[in-house]
């Protein structure tokens, strides 16, 4: 078995690196920088039941060691994504994960079911944690009962493994994780962005038109690590970790905290080749810290307690 290989429900990954949803579109733009077959998987930009135009601009603002965004789930709708984008991505030798969102439970169910006949999609990432839309998203992500309900319904509707993407905007992340695990989630994906705001001193108004946005980038990495570390001690399903990863060392830290694979988000913006670079550097980094394989590092920090 290869040094970097990881097996997760529905996903036989040649390496644990994948671009995070919303930070990589549907891969087309980044395919001009490197061969996407190099990636362990690609988590696609969100799919909703019908087309969405998203929020007014400005939609992004830079912060200390990170950025805020409030795109608002802009996407062409699940049918067009399957027709145009999955078809494009399936030319590459990589796993495809579809990110699923909705304003209502029915919409989640519809999107999930629509992916059932798409052989090229290997798993769903259930987006119950988008902080930037008025309805749906975050409501499902902050109440354990609602999170469990949407997970259960999507699990019934789908024939694919379901990874539930958790929001860090909660008091008790372990309660959220346990709730979706009991509801049948095959895995977790964590963390989504933290709600934040930045005010322009000259205009005396929030920079982002939506006022609030999701904070991502290096600034949130310690929060992601802490949450994964806590959750790992209480659930048995695998975790895809994310939040401020920009180097192979960061990846190892997430693995030690309990992630089985990782997604790289904001770092794609400063370096479009970041996923490819990390995949190249990971073997040396693992070796430097005494690991023969990725799988040996998973949850090591938790076990050391």
């Amino acid at each position, binding site marked *: 078995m290869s040094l970097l290989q990881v097996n997760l429900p529905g996903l036989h990954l040649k390496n644990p690196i994948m671009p995070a949803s919303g930070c990589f579109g549907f891969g087309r733009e980044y395919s001009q920088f490197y061969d996407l077959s190099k990636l362990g998987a690609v988590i696609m930009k969100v799919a909703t039941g019908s087309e969405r135009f998203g929020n007014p*601009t*400005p*939609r992004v603002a830079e912060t200390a060691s990170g950025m805020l965004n409030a795109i608002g789930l802009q996407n062409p709708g699940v049918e067009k994504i399957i027709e145009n984008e999955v078809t494009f991505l399936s030319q590459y030798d990589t796993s495809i994960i579809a990110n699923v969102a909705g304003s209502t439970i029915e919409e989640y169910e519809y999107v999930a079911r629509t992916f059932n006949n798409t052989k090229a999609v290997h798993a769903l990432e259930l987006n119950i944690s988008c902080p930037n839309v008025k309805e749906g998203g975050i409501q499902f992500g902050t109440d354990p009962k609602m999170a469990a309900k949407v997970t259960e319904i999507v699990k019934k509707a789908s024939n694919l493994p379901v990874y539930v993407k958790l929001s860090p905007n909660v008091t008790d992340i372990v309660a959220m994780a346990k709730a979706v695990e009991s509801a049948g989630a095959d895995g977790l994906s964590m963390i989504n962005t933290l709600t934040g705001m930045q005010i322009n001193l000259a205009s005396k108004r929030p920079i982002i038109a939506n006022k609030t946005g999701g904070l991502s980038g290096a600034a949130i990495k310690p929060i992601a690590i802490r949450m994964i570390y806590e959750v790992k001690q209480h659930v048995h399903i695998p975790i895809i970790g994310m939040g401020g990863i920009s180097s192979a060392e960061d990846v190892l830290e997430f693995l030690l905290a309990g992630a089985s694979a990782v997604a790289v988000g904001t770092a794609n*913006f*400063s*370096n479009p080749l970041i996923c490819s670079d990390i995949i190249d550097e990971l073997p040396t980094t693992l070796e430097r810290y005494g690991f023969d394989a990725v799988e040996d590092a998973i949850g090591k920090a938790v076990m050391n307690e």
Partner: protein
Amino acid sequence: MISKQRMKIVSTNQIAKDTIEMVLKNSYISENAIPGQFIHILVEGHTLRRPISIADVDKDNETVTILFKKLGSGTEKLSESKAGDFLNVLGPSGNGFETSTEGLHTVLLIGGGIGVPPMYYLGKSLAKQNIHVISVLGFQSKDHVFYEEKFQQFSKTYVVTNDGSYGDKGFVTSVIPNVGEFDRYYSCGPLPMLKAITNELSEKEGFISLEERMGCGVGACFACVVPTNTEKGYKKICSDGPVFAAREVIL
């Protein structure tokens, strides 16, 4: 095609208030850049790159000139770079200006403030193709004026300042009725200026360059969209633009 490149700073000069001119050397970008495109510059200590439009290209010397205004911590930091330093750049990015010249006799360039730079390389290129060029450049005040003589080398140039401290007093729109006939206009500048121009010149063929806070700068993150009249309903400024036909976008 857009590529990740290292560009060596050949020179850097402050040419007007808060306005820096940098000449950067790189054969790939100088060979491939067309008027209206931008480069996306990584600034040390910053998460997001800064999109800066290309003001001039010298293919023989393999250089690209950029002009930017110190408007925040990113451009402030960038202005501290010195000749000999290298910049980490993506480019050439975006779609540039329509430069097919069939049936074209006279064009009007309208630049406002830091929207003036992309007009320079465009005007120079069009003038080389024997197109008659008229330029209207608007600035806040005398201290902000730059490149007037450079535009005069290929065009009849009108300068306006908001406070009247140099050239005519007012906005670029107050000068446009006096410039004479033209077949097409090109413009880049602040949004209120572009709104006024596209309204006033709605009967003319026009191309405008838009700016917006960008995320990825390659078309993946949907941060910099603009509503359009097309069936799709939107376009991405970083990859479909920054240049658009004036009639297709809703400002």
